[in-house]
Every structure is written in C-alpha cells, then in structure tokens.
C-alpha cells in the first residue's frame, strides 16, 4: 500500500509538472520547434499544415517522435498566423494525396478527394479546411485538415468534428453544406460550412 501511495503522489506531481512546464511560455523548446518547422512548405506557409510534404511520408515510416508531432499539427496553432492571414476563399485545389488516410495516388479511379479552401473563422480562432471524399456523385466521407486549436478552441473543434465529420457524419447524411450549426461553436461551424461549400462546388 505504501508503494501505491507513492505512485499516486507521483501521478499527481508529474501531471502538475507537465502542465506547469507547458503552461509557462518558452519553457520548452521541443514543442515550439515542431510547428515552426512546417512553414518550409512553399504553397501556404503555416496555413495548411497537412500540405507539408513530410506528412504523407510520415505514415509509412512510423518513426516515433516526429510523426506524432506532425500528425497532431493540424490541431496546433500556427505561430506565423498573423503574418500569413489569408482571406477566405483561397483555393488550394487538388491536394488529394496529402491526407493521412489515403494511399498516395490510388483513388483516382472511383473515389476522389476534394479539398476545400482554408477558411479563417471569425474572431480570429484559427482556420478550418475541409476535405470530402466523393464516390460517383455522392459524398462518402468528410475530414477536417485543420481546425482551430488550443485552449477553448479544442473543445469546440471537437464538437464540430464529431457532428460533421466521418462516414456517418452530418455531411454524408445531408449531402450538402446546409448543416445545423453546432451550439457554442458558431464561428467554427460557419467556417466549416464555407470550406465545405467550396469543396462541393469544386467536386460536382
């Protein structure tokens, strides 16, 4: 029992330590280096992390620390945000093979992936980018390549993701961009719909 108390104390102490270490800005270099490594992407610096050429390559290699960082990248805020703010509607077309799920260039035959533009949410929360998978003339899946993240945004983004995305999500059910707004996440919902609408227009 003494060891259990020791373990529980350790759990509490290490959780606190981790949160405190992350909470103080500049305390750690590791996490800061990861996002800043992404703007090497020439097409849209920092805006569209999934377009980072490292992302598709990360999947097969499966090396531990870096891919896990890049896999999470869409949910992490972009340090270069203010300087690269782009108006909504910028078409970043045909990014088909970049999504983590795809098998590079195979799906050209029956299913297509269409990526919507990166849309800035109101109130400066972050960016939303939607990608839909189209089979024939039906949407069969929807994924978000980026969503606002950090602090409060995580939870709203999670709600939006849960409602809209996936093979059983609202996008697939409704087959249109007329989605119900997620309560408490109006800005994110609207940005989502905007990106989705553009993707649908482009696909059909």
């Amino acid at each position, binding site marked *: *029992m003494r*060891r*259990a108390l020791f*373990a*529980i104390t350790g*759990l*509490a102490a290490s*959780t*606190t330590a*981790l*949160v405190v*270490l*992350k*909470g*103080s*800005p*500049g*305390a*750690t270099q*590791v*996490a*800061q280096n*990861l*996002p800043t490594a992404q703007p090497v992407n020439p097409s849209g610096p920092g805006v569209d992390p999934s377009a980072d050429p490292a992302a598709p390559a*990360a*999947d097969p290699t*499966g*090396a*531990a*620390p870096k*891919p*896990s*960082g890049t*896999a*999470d990248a*869409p*949910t*992490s*805020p972009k*340090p270069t945000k203010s300087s690269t703010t782009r108006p909504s509607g910028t078409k970043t077309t045909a990014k088909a093979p970049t999504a*983590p*799920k795809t098998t590079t260039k195979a799906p050209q035959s029956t299913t297509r992936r269409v990526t919507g533009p990166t849309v800035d949410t109101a109130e400066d929360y972050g960016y939303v980018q939607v990608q839909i998978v189209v089979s024939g003339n039906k949407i069969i899946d929807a994924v978000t390549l980026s969503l606002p993240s*950090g*602090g*409060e945004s*995580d*939870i*709203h983004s*999670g*709600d939006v*993701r*849960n409602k809209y995305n996936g093979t059983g999500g609202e996008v697939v059910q409704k087959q249109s961009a007329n989605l119900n707004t997620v309560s*408490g996440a109006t800005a994110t919902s609207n940005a989502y719909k905007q990106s989705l609408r553009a993707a649908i227009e482009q696909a059909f």
Partner: protein
Amino acid sequence: MTHSHTHAAGRRTGTTSSRHGGRSAAPVPPQIPARRGPGGRRLLAALLLVGLLASVLPWWLGTPAGSLRTTAATVTAAGRITGLIAGYLLLVQVLMMSRLSVLERWIGGEQLARWHRDIGATLLVAVLSHLSLILVGYADLRNQSVLAEVGTLLGDYEDMLSAFVATGIMLVVGFSSVRAIRRALPYEVWHLLHRSSYLVLLLGYGHQFTHGAQLYKPGPVRTGWIALYLLVVAALLWGRVIAPLAFNLRYRLRVADVVAESPDTISIYLTGERLGRLEMLGGQYFRWRFLTPGCWWQSHPFSVSAAANGRWLRLTVKVVGRHTADLRDLEPGTRVWAHGPSGTFTAAHRVRERALLIAGGSGITPIRAMLEELPPGAALIYRARTPADVLLSRELDWLAQERDTSIWYVIGSRDDPGPRQLMSPDGLRQLVPDVARRDVYLCGPPGLVEQSVRALRRAGVPRRQIHLATFEL
C-alpha cells in the same frame, strides 16, 4: 485452550525415523535449482516505465508551449494527461493478470499480485481525476455547470455512455478490493466482480479514439495505441486460453487419492501423463480447477506440497470454506484442470547459500516442497497453535535427516511467553546465529508473517533476503 503446550525449542536433527510411508518424498533427491536473478524483473519494470513515458509523449509533442493560458485549458490538459496515463495503466493491469508464463517466470505471481494491487489503486485515482478534470475543464469552456456538462457528454458524445459505465465498474471493482471489504466478501463474489474488469477494457475502448485529442486522428499514435490493445488481448488469449489448454492436454491430471493429514487438512494426490517432463519448483503453486459438478466453475491457488518427482503431484489443503470442504469428497479419477506453475517462493530465488524457513500452520505446504531443493544446512521454524495443527511431521523429520535440516516445532498461542520470546529479534538470533546472512522464507497467517518480518528486519536481515508467499489473487 487454557494450557497450550509450549515446546519452545524441540530440536530434531538427524533423528532416525524409518517410517515415512510408501508415498513420501522423491526416491532420488532432486537437484538444487540454479538461481534466477532479478534481471528479468528489472528489465520488465524498466520497459513498463518507458511505456508510461511514451504514452504521455503524444500530448507533450502535440501541445504548444505557452498554450495553457486559461484555467480551463490547464485543467483540461491535466485531464488529458491523466486520461492517457489511465489508458496505459489499464492495459498494464490486464497484461499483468494475463498469466503469461514469461511474466510469471520473471516477476512471479506473488510480486505480480502486489504490483497489480498498487497499480490498481493508482489506476483508480487516475481514472477518477481524468473524469473530474475533463468535466470541470469542459464545463468551464462551455460556461455551464458540471452537471449540465455531464448531460452534454452523455447526450451528444458518441461512446461516452459506455465510458461512464466503465468508470462505474472500475469503481466497484476497486472498492471491492479494499482489504477490509474484500475480507467480508466470499471469494467467489469478489472474483466474479473482478472478472467484470474485462468489460472496462471493452467499454472504455471507444471513447479514447472518438474523443481522445491525441488519438482521434489516424497516424502513428493512434496505430500504436491500437497495437498496444491488440498486444494485450493476444497476451490474454495466450496466457489464459492457449497455454493452459496445451498444458492440460499434455499432462492430463487426475485425482488419484484424497488423504486426511489432520482433522481439518487433506492431501490430494494427482497423477497424469508425462509428469517427468513437468518443470516445477518446490514452493510454486498452481491454480486448480476440479472438474466435478460442484467445483468446475471455480479455480483456487494451492501450493504443491512435494517437489517434482515425475510420478505424482500433491497439494495439501486446509478445509476452511465451502470449496475446500467439497474437495474432501473428490473421487479418484476426477479430472483436474491446472494452471501454472507460478510463484517465486522457490529455492531458485535465493540470494544466499543458506536459508531459514518460517511456517505457520498450513503454511508448511510450499516450504515442505522447497525443503527438498534447498542446499543442505537449512533451518525450519514451524509455528502451530496445538500439536494437532502440525502437518506432515513425519516427512519433515525424514527431510531433516536426509537434507541436513534443523527443525524447531514452536507450539502455542501467539501470546504465550515461549513463542513470543522465540519470535523476537533476540530469540531468532539465538536460535539461528547467522540469520542475517540467510534467505528467510515465510509462509503462514498474515499476523505471524507481519510479526516475523518486523522481528527479522530488527535482527538485521536485509529486505531482499526475505521471501513471502502470498496468494492474494
């Protein structure tokens, strides 16, 4: 009762006793087993720690420094960390109870049970803090009360209902394992409750992947986490189904005879096929399942009370409950399903050349088996309340002669002056002057074990030389 006999030191070494029945110990004394060091245990402990760090790593890498500015964000982050830790610890818990022979061999059943207990308590705390931190954090973010947040999570979040159910089950399992509560419950009830932990694994699975901030996205982290689950399930299947099946198909154990050792103690002799190839050490135990209409559904751990001899196995059992009472009526020929051997309470785990063994009551059974394999020169203190409680004395006397072992029978209640004096640090040192340089093996009722460990520590015996046999699980 009022005048218990107190033979403080009835030493019997080398007494000639030719009457040791046709059935007592092995015809040829088995060889002394080679030592097994602590290397395997340390390696495994290190691996588990590395795994713990790796399970928190995705959070660390995925969270930008300085992003936890608000209280809500900080609380949510703490909830995520505890969630990842809880998810990992749950897998470790199940893995440790998978009965994998590697684990039993490297760590040993007794040690595993102790780890399982400590990690179990930690896991419960981790899960509860994960739940409450996330609830408080999310409620703050959505600007609603914690109760309303519970409603939101249950109503709008996929897989969250089952996660709440899993937490409830875990709470029940956790509290039923608190020592005081557990003692009040019949073993069977407790065991059934504990079995429902598998539901926790199943019900808790979904929400980690639909909502886990580090796991919902396809990628190496998610793949790795799923692989971990598959690994644990494979270990479970192997340790609990495939390996026992192979063991029992190979050895085909059956009851040969049931013999009364004392009014409330029986010995069950088992025979089978290919027993010569059975690798087993004296002091180890099996989990036994006797395939009769009343007993087949429960399995109980009992030590083997004689070292491996290639012809038969024997377990000696004190009749204390309903199950053990049923064992008295076993018919010869009854099939027996055994799972083992396990345990590190063996001569192979000694760290010194000589040993002191302390047995209390029916705790003599593993020690009796081990005596056959210990290097000569061991000493045995056998505590019993009355002379009638002394078991297997004829075999012990025979072993004392054969293996050059000193045996003291210490009879009397715990409060009698004789046993009290003897079980004190000074008494032990007087009896066994080199006690601090011996391995000490203890098996008996908890009170005796606790008291002896305290006395031994004060007599200068290092902790790593003290070996305990516990059958917690």
